[in-house]
């Protein structure tokens, strides 16, 4: 079962040596592999996953305790049934990440959602406008310091 | 049987309606700025004409007028209006040119009208002494397949060619875009 994961980890070691891979306990945490990459390596990491036949599951983010914004992208393999999460951290005052909509078309909406909720800007995104919030929304409700709109 | 009291008047009334429909329809058809209304004018004219044909002892032609002109031709033209453009494009020419063209059209058509009416009214027409048949549908059919069979064939060919041509042109336009 974990042949895909092994080969994936090998590919990460080869392609992105800086990436840290970790295997959590799927019985508790639900995931099979966690990959921590630098913001610039996101597209590279995504392409590796794409080559291994992973499907995009979701993209989200949150503010961590150190005030940094974390972007997280979940992937799932249809036949090997493995679940991989790719994470990256960006400083709060310059929340920018490269868009992976070019690799996974489905990332388009997830990135729009993450943008409107957290204010993470995705460079190279074709249409980074609010998806669920009103079209003219300028606030980012899922940031921890958000306290509602009048 | 006692004749209906105002039978003549009634007939006259229906005839007046027919004439009115024809004239009004024609005027709407050529004068309206909205194409869709022009087509409706044409349809009105066709209704009027159908009534007139009835007066001219051609009930089959009257029904055919409605079937073909109103049911097919007008519908097709409206379809074209819908596909092509909602309204007649506003005149790009200057006021003077519009006036000139309008005047010219009026003069030409007025002259034509006047000449034709003179011709029609001035001539001493003679009615025929006898009639070959009653001109029923049956007679029409017989004539179509005997005396006029060649014309019939030709018309069929024209229609076939028209259908094929229309298909080719329309299809060509589609594949190009």
């Amino acid at each position, binding site marked *: 079962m974990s042949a895909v994961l092994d080969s994936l980890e090998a590919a990460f070691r080869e392609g992105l040596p800086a990436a840290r891979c970790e295997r959590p306990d799927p019985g508790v945490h639900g995931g099979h592999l966690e990959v921590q990459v630098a913001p610039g390596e996101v597209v590279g990491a995504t392409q590796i996953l794409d080559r291994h036949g992973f499907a995009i599951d979701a993209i989200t983010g949150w503010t961590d305790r150190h005030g940094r914004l974390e972007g997280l992208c979940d992937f799932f393999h249809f036949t090997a049934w493995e679940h991989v999460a790719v994470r990256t951290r960006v400083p709060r005052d310059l929340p920018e990440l490269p868009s992976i909509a070019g690799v996974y078309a489905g990332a388009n909406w997830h990135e729009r959602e993450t943008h409107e909720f957290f204010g993470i800007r995705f460079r190279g995104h074709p249409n980074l406008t609010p998806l669920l919030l009103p079209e003219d929304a300028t606030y980012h409700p899922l940031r921890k310091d958000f306290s509602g709109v009048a | 049987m006692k004749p209906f009291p105002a*039978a003549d008047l009634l007939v006259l009334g229906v005839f007046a309606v027919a004439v009115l429909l024809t004239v009004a329809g024609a005027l709407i058809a050529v004068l309206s700025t909205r194409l869709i209304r022009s087509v409706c004018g044409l349809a009105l004219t066709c209704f009027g004409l159908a009534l007139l044909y009835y007066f001219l002892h051609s009930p089959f032609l009257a029904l055919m007028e409605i079937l073909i002109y*109103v049911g097919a031709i007008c519908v097709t033209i409206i379809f074209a209006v*819908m596909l092509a453009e909602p309204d007649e494009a506003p005149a790009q020419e200057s006021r003077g040119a519009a006036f000139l063209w309008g005047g010219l059209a009026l003069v030409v058509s007025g002259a034509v009208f006047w000449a034709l009416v003179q011709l029609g009214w001035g001539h001493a027409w003679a009615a025929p002494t006898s009639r070959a048949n009653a001109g029923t549908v049956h007679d029409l059919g017989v004539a179509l397949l005997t005396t006029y069979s060649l014309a019939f064939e030709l018309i069929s060919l024209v229609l076939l060619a028209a259908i094929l041509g229309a298909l080719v042109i329309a299809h060509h336009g589609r594949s190009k875009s």
Partner: protein
Amino acid sequence: MNVPEPYRLLLYLVGTLAFVGLNAAYLVWVERKGAARFQRRPGPTEVGPAGLLQPIADALKLLSKQVLVPPEADRLLFRLAPLLVLMPALMCLATIPFSAALGARDLNLGLVMVFAFGSINVLAIMLGGWASRNKYSIISAARIVSQNVAYEIPMLLVVITLLMVTGTMNLREIVEQQAGGFWHWHILRLTANPLMPVTFLIFFICLLAETNRAPFDMAEAESELVAGAFTEYAGMSFGVFFMAEYANVLVGCSLATVLFFGGWQSPVGVGSGLLWFLLKLYLLIFLVVWVRWTFPRTQFYRLLNLSWTLLIPVSLGILLLTAGLLKVF
């Protein structure tokens, strides 16, 4: 009858008007009750016994509503279309002989008249759709033209086939030819054409398509075009379109009764009369309702394909076959 012609005509005009009005209203009731039964519901029950007064309540409600004209619409045509839409059905019904004695006008060209005025129907719906200036309405108007043109052809081919068999366009004479038991009805006149039931089937399919009934209700496909050409219509002007649909069904089924099921002739040969006509008519209408509440809607281009690739060739074949058989025998 010793009544002067204009009076007689007027009388029949009023009679037809009442018949069409009553039927259009009560076919709505039949449709609603029928649909309810097919879906195992009771249907309208509240107004009057078995909901029989429901159509009147509906009409009152529609009448009390404001007739709205969208600001972008072509006001004149928008108002004209509902007036125009009931006319063809009335004219067509004037030619239908309900029984040996009952018929507005005994025309030699009755059949042509039905088709001549039947073809105007599409014009009214189209004008209404176009005048609304609503995108759904315009799509619907475009659909209705293609659909009507496509289905007019096989329908006319079928009717011409029948004309060759009957040799007359007088509807009364057509009915009289079918006297003497159901085996004389045109639908079973296999000597003229062994495919007569198929001919009826084609006629029936065309009837559904021409009257915009499900599964061919492309023009008002509610899940696609909201209400199609009638989207912008409110109040009684919508009601008129609604009634016109049923009036057209009435005309279509009457015509089918006359052409295929022997009109007022009784199936056993004796005791012919108006009742038989009405029985056959309403059975056919029930069939139309039944079909509507059984099948999903077809796709628009499948509908056109059905006509161009199946119905027209088959009806043309039947036409030629019938002609050949008539020539041989």
